């Protein structure tokens, strides 16, 4: 039997994890759906019927992204919740699976299945809400207002509302891929903190992330630099980038791919080192 990865053993780990956790996951999504529903109802009740900004594509896009990040961080933090106490930690660590298989389990659940499930919940709830808002929309008498675009956001399929006419399609691909990389980096950091810190792990992880953010912003502010410049190499077409030498592109793409990759590799080591200790 392969000590690093064995498919049959990994499947058993998957089944065991599902059997242990499906109830808590189901409740997690029920809570998310209730929160989303409350915001939707409030939006429909309180929104200006001449605009319904909340149900236009731009707001729906932000809604989706914010919801995914917020719930994803909570989900990722809870994924290794068993590391909270010594007893439960031991049970997790003693599961008959390799460190790599446990790491794959986290990647599968947090990095893939969770965004899919979240998207399904978002679609099931927001699609009818957007359709309802479209029906209720009353065109304004104000001649300045633009015509609203009532569209739900669907990852990797929605086109930018401002990309009309369609001969100039502007999909969200670049922004979406950047978002995926950042999301993966964020959840990896959350899970790493959850495993590494033995007490008050969530608080310490948040403090670490906040400290890094403030540190980065301070350095940028002192140098008058753009703290998010790497993203521009990915989201902006080549002719508009600030500089386009091969070294610049290598560094920019190195940041985009490298940081999430290193954080996930770090997560692997954190699981492994927790097993050793």
């Amino acid at each position, binding site marked *: 039997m392969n000590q690093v990865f064995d498919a049959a053993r990994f499947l058993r780990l998957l089944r065991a994890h599902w059997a242990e956790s499906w109830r808590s996951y189901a409740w997690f999504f029920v809570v998310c759906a209730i929160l989303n529903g409350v915001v939707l109802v409030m939006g429909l009740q309180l929104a200006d019927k001449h605009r319904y900004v909340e149900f236009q594509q731009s707001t729906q896009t932000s809604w989706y992204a914010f919801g995914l990040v917020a719930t994803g961080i909570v989900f990722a933090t809870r994924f290794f919740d068993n590391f909270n106490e010594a007893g439960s930690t031991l049970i997790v660590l003693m599961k008959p699976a390799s460190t790599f298989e446990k790491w794959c389990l986290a990647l599968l659940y947090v990095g893939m299945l969770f965004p899919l499930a979240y998207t399904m919940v978002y679609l099931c709830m927001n699609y009818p809400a957007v359709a309802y808002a479209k029906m209720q929309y009353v065109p304004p008498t104000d001649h300045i207002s633009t015509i609203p675009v009532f569209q739900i956001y669907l990852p990797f399929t929605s086109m930018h*509302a401002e990309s009309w006419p369609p001969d100039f399609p502007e999909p969200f691909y670049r922004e979406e891929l950047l978002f995926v990389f950042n999301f993966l980096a964020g959840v990896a950091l959350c899970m*790493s903190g959850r495993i590494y810190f033995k007490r008050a792990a969530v608080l310490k992880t948040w403090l670490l992330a906040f400290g890094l953010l403030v540190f980065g912003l301070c350095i940028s502010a002192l140098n008058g630099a753009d703290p998010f410049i790497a993203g521009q190499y990915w989201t902006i077409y080549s002719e508009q980038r600030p500089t386009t030498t091969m070294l610049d592109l290598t560094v920019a793409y190195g940041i985009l791919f490298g940081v999430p990759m290193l954080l996930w590799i770090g997560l692997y080591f954190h699981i*492994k080192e927790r097993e050793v200790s």
Partner: protein
Amino acid sequence: MFDVFKKKGVWTLGAAVVLLFMGQMYLNSQVPKGKQNIDSVVNFDSQGIHALRIEKEIGTPSRGLSLKVVEPVAHVSATFNSSAYALASHVEGDVLVLTFNLSKKNGKGKYLDDPLSEKDQVLVPASIRDLEFSNTGFLRISKETPIELGALDVRFVDCPTNANFENMAIDKMTVTKHCQASGAPSESHPSGYIRMSSMKIKNLEITSASGSVDLAESVKVDALQLNLGADVLLSGSVALLRNAHLVSVP
């Protein structure tokens, strides 16, 4: 205490942080700092648009060239309640010509919220549909209407006149407005506005003697020429502007 440095997980996290910060610092070091005035492309006389300053913010490539009004000499309200309106338009070759005229036709004004009669209907190329009119002297082209034109020529005959252009891709567009509103520009006597948003234009020329010109950030222009009167309020910003040329209208 120093056990922390023996852990590969910590080192990997450190490597990610170093890669992030060092990489960002390197990329920022490659971008020229500060703002650069590009007044050299601005050509106006002493009576011209002295209140206008153009700055190119180097280091913010996504915004390209920003147009900013430092001391607006006129303020034009967006409120305009003209009721009588007429629109005449025709197609010259593959060019759609829209002509706005505030004067009433034969004493009977054309109310823009009225359905256009067959006679008045705009002759447009097949790629243009759903021209939308409101009752306040306003032209808007529907956001849900895909519009692509080789050229668009818009002429304003009388003032005040308002026009919004949205979601069009045009190779060459000219907007001409020589009229002056009677009386000083104010909320009660606006000189009208020209607004553009979500446009992709290769070559845009706007001549306006009065009112305001507002180019939203979503307007992408390869080459722009603005011929503006001294009182014209220019606002907004033009993204991805590569070549701007401004002259004043005598």
